[in-house]
Structure formats: C-alpha cells, structure tokens
C-alpha cells in the first residue's frame, strides 16, 4: 500500500504499521484514515500529506 509523507515534518505514514497510538490500526490505507486525524509528530492536517515517491 502507498506510503504518505508529511510535508511539514517529514513523518512517513506506513499503512503496514498504522498509527496505533492515535487509533489507526495497522493495515489502514491512508485514504481510510478519519479526516480529523493529524500527523502524530507535528500535528499537521491530513491534507498536508503527499504520496511518497
């Protein structure tokens, strides 16, 4: 599955890992994360992420 990178701080969202601390289970595609989720490192909104090249 496609990884996404935070344009603000460089954090990489890896669907295989998810973001368990913030209620996103491993295996969740980026598109399926709730819209109010924010970058766990810097707090940037979901729309600040870009597909990782």
């Amino acid at each position: 599955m496609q990884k996404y990178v935070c344009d603000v701080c460089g954090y990489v969202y890896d669907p295989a890992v998810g973001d368990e601390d913030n209620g996103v289970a491993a295996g969740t595609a980026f598109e399926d994360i709730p819209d109010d989720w924010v970058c766990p490192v810097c707090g940037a909104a979901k729309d600040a992420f870009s597909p990782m090249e």
Partner: protein
Amino acid sequence: MDKTFRAVPIAKDIYWVGAIDWTIRNFHGYATHRGTTYNAYLALGEKPILFDTVKRPHMDELLERISSVIDPKDISYIVSNHSEMDHSGSLPEVMELVKPEATFASVMGQKALAAHFGVTDGVTAVKDGERRTLGNREVLFLEARMLHWPDSMFSYLGDKKILFSNDAFGMHLASHERFADELPPAVLEYEAKKYYANILLPYSNLVTKLLERVGKSGLEFSMIAPDHGPVWRRSDDISKITGLWHAWSLQAPQKKAVVLYDTMWNSTERMARAVSEGLADGGIHTVVMSMESSHRSDVATEVLDAGAIVAGSPTLNNNMFPTMADVLTYLKGLRPRNLVGAAFGSYGWGGEAVGQVEAMLEEMKVEPAGEQVRVQYVPTQEDLARCREFGRNIAAKLVQFCETV
C-alpha cells in the same frame, strides 16, 4: 551577600531570570553576530512558577538571579515550553534542586525530555488548550507544534495577560535592556528577520495558521515574552512583531535578488558582478554575496524577502564548489517559496557545476528565470555582456512574477 546577577522585574511579581550570552557566535550553524539571551521567567505568588531554564553552562546565572528574589527551593512549578537544550539544559538539575510539585511540558515535550535527559519522573504532559490553576495564578497551555519543534508550546499567564512564547517572536540579541522599546528598531527588525529566516521559515504555513488562530481566540496580550532577545510590551511593538511574522510567513516575492557565488580565480566573481549590474539595471534591488565572506545564515536572511536567487559556482573536480553545496543545502532545508532563479559559473573543463546548481534550484521549487550561463576559464568582454543581459532578463522575469504571485 549582594548578588551579582539579579532578577529583573518585567511586571508586578513577574521577573526575568535568564542569562546573557555575550560571546556565542555559532549557534548550531547560525551566526549569532550579536550574541543571545536565554530567557527564563519567574512568576511569584502563592505557588511560584518558573517558565523555562537556560543552556547548561549558564545555570549558575539563572540560579543567582532567582535567588535574588526567592529561595529556588520555594518554586512550586516549572513549565518547560521547549525541550531544546538552550532552554532545557539546566532543567534536570534545577528539578533536582527545586523538587517542584510538578513540571509541565507538552505531550511531545514529555517524550523529548525523556529522550534528551532520561527525565521521566515528575514531568506532567499538558494538552493543547489546557488551563491549570496554579496557586493564585492561571496558566493556559497552547501547543505550537513545529514552531519550531514537535514539542514547542506557549504558556499564557491569564491574570497578567503575558504570553511566554518560547522561541516565537524571539531573536538572538545579547543586551541588558529587557524590553524591545529600549533597543534600536532597525537592529530588532534585522535580528527578528534573521531568526525567522533561519528557524521558522520551513514552517511558514503553520505560522500563518497560528497567527490566525490567535487572532480569533480573543486572547489579549499585555506582553509577549520570548525565550531569546527582548520582551515586547508596547501594544504597537506587539502589533509590529506579529505583523512582520505574518508578512514573512506569506513570502510574497519582492523586487529583490540575491546573487550568491564563490570563485577560484575570480572568473565566477566577475560574472556575478556583471549579472548584478543587469539585475540592478532592470530595477531590482540586488544583494551580492560571496560565500567566501558570507555566512549561510546571513544569506538565508537576505533570501527571506527576495524574489530571485541567482547562484554561481565554479566547477571543482567535476563538482560544484563546496561552499555553494553548503549554502544551497541549507537554503533547501529552509524551504523558501515564491522565488525565481538561475545559475551561472566559470569552468576549466567538464563544467558540471552549473547544471548541478540548476538541479538544486529545481529541487527547491525555484522557478527557472533563464538559461544558464557558462564561461570557460576567463570571461571576455562579450561573456560579461552576456552575463549582464542574463541579469536583465531575470529582472524582467521577476517583475512579471511579482505581479502574478
């Protein structure tokens, strides 16, 4: 015995208890030509609160200033707004000495303090927007993530309307004067601009949002007290510094160009001079910076309000000159936006550097403003005329760019 270092009152029962670093000139790669201060603040009351500490070598100065008004052991709470070591370096030892009822940090700050010092006991994480009544005072904690670290936090002392803004609205400037209105405005504006360019620029979108959020919050400020440089207490000064930050965060291009270069046998330098003549002739305020004599952090300061960056490099052993790689790598990390640019340089054989500079500008999302100019060995009068024309063309492109962005 009289104290050499004393607390300086900034409001009734509120003291500056920081340290003045007159000698520092290299702050993690940022040239601090005027030194700096590490500001810590002490709020006296039923439960005295210490906001931040100082860089470790200056701990004695902090403690002596505190001791001039209160026994440090009487401090009830410590607030750690930012875990970077210029503010937290003394924290573990101060916590050990003071044994506060609690030390407050943001959620990310709690993690960062653990990672820096192994400090886990006694640090209480506070959430964004959390209010705490501490004795007869009320403190509101506001997360300022990535301004400029994940843990960055502001603390607002509600009963005094003072914002302890940590690194925001600060500058590296050593002085005994504690208030901005006691210092020369031109120096303040330059050092504030330099601080923004070198520390905050990559997070400009967040700065714009934060200022809008604060504007809507209805919070009133009697003072903004940062952790470096002077305190802003006059309402016109508070408006000025927040207005400047807003303008810098938007990065609207201006009719200003920075020509930066290095040179081996003065050929690229002569090209740089000719390029700058063309830019100036085209109505552009142009600053020429040789990397032999300019610091990368001074270049970043000039780029902050520029609209064009024109970079020249000789080719050394098939690569761009190392000082150019340094400054361009540094600028790339700062993510300046809304720039046009181009590359030039002299070479003996190979001549790869100019293309490498162009590739770097492209990575920086700088809009191309002209075909590169390369000269083998030494520029002739014709070559210099070509450089001048190159500068004129970039000027025309920039004027157009300023109208469209």
